[in-house]
């Protein structure tokens, strides 16, 4: 008896699950209706929009540069966009889903996984950002207290802003700051802590390596967190130098002195099976605002 009842409950539960699928999906979502069979591209399919979290430096720069904002600068990214707070999840999602579109830092782009599309005909490369044909870029900031008394931190900053430091920047695929002079530091002994944005961190790692060659006496610790933690910790004094992949907010700029150490491009990425090679700024905008939901309508 009970056994039968139990089985009945189970089957009702599973039927309900199926029913939930059946009568659901009244919501308008433009995420991936890839009705085409596996492997074949179907342009009538819905676009799977993938976005970064609100407040992220990458998202802030992306929405601003592509105009995914209303008159009052409010973020208008469609609520149907998937959200991730992680560059590698973003790349995995786009590489697994034929109809997905996303955006990442040019320095983290792995072309074996995904394809970066041209924006208004310009390829996403460091040269194109430098000569101004690829317009989607944002600054990498480092910030320290104006009255910071740490000779290593000051000297390291001088190194970053020197010809040698900026060579590292361009070597890593970022765009260096235009006017710099040769490093003429004092190579003091001591230690300092650098921390903040995970976008800036890979570059900072290389800069620290290069700095250790010119100044073996210094020890620099790198902590990877995020832009906001980087700034607040620099204000509180637990980091000597904070990193941010966005502009400093007003309340942060009041306490810290920010310096742009490099410019990073933002690449718009699609799946490798996606035949789209070239998008205009307006097309990307209409995808992210949610006006265009299928690839053939782009």
């Amino acid at each position, binding site marked *: 008896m009970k056994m039968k009842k139990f089985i009945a409950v189970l089957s009702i539960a599973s039927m309900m*699950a199926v029913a939930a699928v059946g009568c659901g999906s009244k919501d308008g979502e433009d*995420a991936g209706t890839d009705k085409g069979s596996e492997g074949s591209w179907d342009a009538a399919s819905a676009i799977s929009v993938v976005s970064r979290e609100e*407040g992220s430096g990458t998202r802030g720069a992306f929405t601003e540069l592509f105009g995914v904002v209303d008159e009052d600068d409010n973020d208008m990214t469609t609520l149907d966009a998937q959200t991730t707070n992680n560059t590698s999840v973003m790349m995995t999602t786009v590489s697994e889903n034929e109809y*997905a579109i996303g955006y990442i830092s040019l320095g983290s782009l792995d072309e074996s996984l995904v394809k970066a599309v041209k924006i208004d005909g310009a390829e996403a490369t460091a040269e194109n950002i430098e000569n101004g044909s690829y317009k989607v870029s944002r600054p990498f900031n480092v910030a320290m207290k104006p009255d910071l008394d740490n000779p290593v931190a000051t000297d390291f900053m001088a190194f970053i802003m020197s010809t040698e430091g900026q060579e590292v920047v361009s070597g890593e695929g970022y765009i260096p700051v235009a006017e710099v002079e040769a490093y003429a530091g004092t190579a003091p002994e001591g230690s300092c802590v650098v921390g903040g944005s995970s976008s800036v961190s890979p570059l900072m790692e290389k800069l620290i390596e290069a700095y250790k060659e010119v100044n073996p006496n210094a020890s620099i610790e790198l902590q990877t967190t995020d832009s906001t933690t980087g700034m607040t910790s620099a204000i509180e004094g637990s980091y000597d130098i904070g990193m941010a992949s966005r502009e400093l907010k007003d309340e942060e700029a009041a306490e810290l002195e920010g310096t742009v150490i490099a410019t990073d491009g933002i690449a718009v990425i699609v799946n490798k099976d996606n035949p789209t090679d070239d998008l205009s700024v307006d097309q990307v905008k209409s995808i992210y605002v949610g006006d265009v939901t299928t690839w053939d309508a782009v």
Partner: protein
Amino acid sequence: MKSKAWTEKFMQGVFFVAACASVLAVALICVFLFANGIPAMKEIGFIKFLTGDVWRPSSEQFGILSMIVGSLYVTAGAIIFGVPIGILTSVFMAMYCPKRIYKPLKAATELLAGIPSVIYGFFGLVVVVPLVRDFGNVLYRAGIVEKAGDGNSILTASLILGIMILPTIIGTTESAMRAVPSHYYQGSLALGATKERSIFRVIIPAAKSGVVAGIVLGIGRAIGETMAVIMIAGNQPRITGSILQGIRTLTGNIVIEMGYATGLHREALIATGVVLFVFILIINFSVALLKRGADHE
């Protein structure tokens, strides 16, 4: 004699301090959460915060209803997948399992509990998400659903969470069933009941409070799970009617946005934590009530 009495007192003190540590930790977390979260809720407006379904921090719109619904969806989904499998597994382990299979089976369920949640998340992202996407496509082509979804969905999150809560449910249910005196079972068999009937009508009702405690602990784990969920749930802050579409959970909302949040946005995330904390309190409270009810019987 005297020195012995002194050491006894001293050790008693040590034990007392140790006992206080966890109470203190809970108290401090409560104070932190409420002191930071309540003012933010007030500033946003309690009703607006809890029932608003638009979450756009950059334009000062903080409504977490969609996240509350999202958390409830995936938790319910986890129960639908996890509880039947968990209970049936513990029936097998406690009543049917040959000794030879028992050891590896037990080790496997315990290992399941030890796998870090980020591994579950990555497994979900690489294996389950494409499967669910294909499943969605099949349904879409058959005309059963209007949108196929892209695999990052309530269904995916429910499946993974269902697996994650298995060890909790199996562990408590199995030990509760083993704690039932064997003469209940033998008596039932002696009265002519079949083995299955004895298990489901005698053993499980007798072990009810343990089973329920296991399920509720599983609910607690499912609602609090973060890392795995944010990798596979899509994290769209909006309410949906289809299990093939993504949602954002309360925990996911905090983790995803905490890194870059400042000012009221940050406080709103802490207030999200308050709501989550209240959920957990309700769950624990209901466990206590259920247990008391069971004891009275």
